[in-house]
């Protein structure tokens, strides 16, 4: 293969992993905007999506589409339950306390999945075969197309929800100013609850559509979650286009780096980008600088 063909191939696969990171990143951004919490358990919700689908398919013998739907619903439930049990009862939340609680939650979820499931890696079947499709000189799997399509649908649905529904608007109001939102009669705690549920849904979807390509196990959430966070940071922690672009950019850079430099250091690339962005432009590539309020 010539170099240009290789690069085309890397770009394609980078875009599809980037779409996954974007979905996870939007989950981070939604929770952050309504609560100022970075949910360290976000990656675990992604993992739960894949594992629940597996559970419904193998143990309950349900068809794939039904399993996926149930898995998304189950993960939404888990996200909501997590908020109810750990975030809401907090009397005086401090940033440090919230970091530690969500980290605690993430290793707890990981541990429980390991306990009730196992430590092996599992694969989900591809949604519609695995016959490669030729695009120019690069090939693409049908699963990649599913990833692009479902990510686009999820992001569009998300956008519509926040733009046109009363609940979505209320959540945006919370993101702008929680206190003012409360004063005009918005139930802020309920919006926080919703934000965990929604990002559980987005995360699980990401975990489900990527599972046929990369396999799934109890510990896939850590890396996926961190890279989703990286995408959100590049996008300036906004739930919109910035995070999507951030995810795609990260996916492409990672894929190019792995292909052209070293595959062993693939995961390190994401973190080096993360550190550089945090050091140089903590407001994100597409965000505006903010001043500290005391």
């Amino acid at each position, binding site marked *: 293969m010539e170099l240009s063909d290789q690069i085309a191939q890397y770009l394609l696969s980078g875009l599809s992993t980037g779409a996954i990171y974007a979905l996870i990143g939007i989950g981070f951004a939604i929770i952050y905007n309504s609560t100022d919490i970075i949910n360290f358990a976000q990656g675990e919700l992604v993992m739960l999506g894949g594992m629940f689908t597996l559970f419904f398919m193998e143990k309950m013998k349900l068809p794939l589409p039904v399993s996926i739907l149930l898995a998304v619903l189950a993960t939404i439930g888990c996200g909501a339950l997590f908020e109810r049990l750990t975030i809401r009862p*907090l009397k005086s939340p401090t940033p440090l*306390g919230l*970091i530690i609680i969500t980290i605690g939650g993430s290793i*707890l979820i990981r*541990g429980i999945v390991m306990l009730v499931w196992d430590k092996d890696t599992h694969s989900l079947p591809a949604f519609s075969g695995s016959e490669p499709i030729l695009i120019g000189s690069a090939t693409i799997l049908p699963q990649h197309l599913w990833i692009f399509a479902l990510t686009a649908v999820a992001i569009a649905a998300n956008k519509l929800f926040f733009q046109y529904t009363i609940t979505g608007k209320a959540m945006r109001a919370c993101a702008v100013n929680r206190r003012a939102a409360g004063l005009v009669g918005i139930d802020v705690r309920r919006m926080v609850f919703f934000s965990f549920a929604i990002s559980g849904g987005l995360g699980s979807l990401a975990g489900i559509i990527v599972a046929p390509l990369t396999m799934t196990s109890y510990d896939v959430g850590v890396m996926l979650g961190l890279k989703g966070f990286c995408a959100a940071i590049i996008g300036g922690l906004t739930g919109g286009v910035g995070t999507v672009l951030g995810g795609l950019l990260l996916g492409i850079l990672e894929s190019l780096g792995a292909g052209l430099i*070293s595959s062993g250091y693939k995961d*390190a690339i994401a973190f*080096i980008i993360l550190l550089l962005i*945090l050091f140089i432009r903590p407001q994100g590539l597409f965000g505006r600088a903010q001043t500290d309020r005391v």
Partner: protein
Amino acid sequence: MNREIVKYLLLVVVVLFIPLLVHEGYMLNVMVFVGIHAMLALALNLLLGYAGQISLGQAGFFGLGAYVSGILTTSFNLDPWIAMIIAAIFVTLLAFVIGFPILKLKGHYLAMATLGLGIIIYIVFNEAVDHTGGPSGLSGIPNLKIAGIVFDNDLKNYFLIWGFTLVSIGLSLNLVHSRIGRALRSIHDSEVAARVMGVNARILKVQIFALSACISAVAGSLYAHTMTFIAPASFGFNFSVELVTMVIIGGLASIYGSILGAALLTMLPELLRTFQDYDIIVYGLLLIVMTMYMPGGLVNGIPAVFSRLKGKSKREGGGDA
């Protein structure tokens, strides 16, 4: 101040007496680990408990200390003591340089950045196979020796490690009760207020970060030279979280709390052998429950529970009057 000295001497006596009670080699080995973990928890507590700056990459500094020591003694045949000093200086400088940009960040951003740093270091341990031996690890690291005494069994290692641990505890106690300690706590409470009062918060945070990394690196070197074998798995993200758990359980901003936390979390898995891998569930639960219901850790929480019980019984007793 006198009370502090008495408490410290009491700890020294306890440390000296433990080998008389614990003859069994295995438990003594566990006590060696308690010592190493106590140093690491202490180092993290200086940063997290006193200055209020989280680090989720402490295992990385610990690992760097171990690997620099290991590589210098095996590949370059340096004396273990010299390797240890070089490792400490290297890690301290690294932390100092990286501390400036990283400690500008706050809260979640700082947590994620230190986490990322830790994972990058971990990936390098795994991938730089020529130097580190990759995932299968580095073996044949020599023991430390002083004047003909080679630290090659559990009893000698116990005294070696706890000697270092006690010195670190003494230095830390001194530090937190000094002007610098008060400045650190002022940063914890409000960085802006601290700066207004003339505390150079930026430099101080970086200095405490570097000190914390330095103690962790020394612990890492000691680990490498007592175990004589190191592998990346010991220095991953999970271990960083375990260290945070130790500090939280023992009590933020409590030197003795860190030792208690380290001792509990090191011995707990040994006592609950049946748990095996599932100890992470216990860590997760402990983190959540402690943060929610006992944010001061055991050191502050247990006396508080006692005094509340006392207060309750008094109130109930006086209810009739």
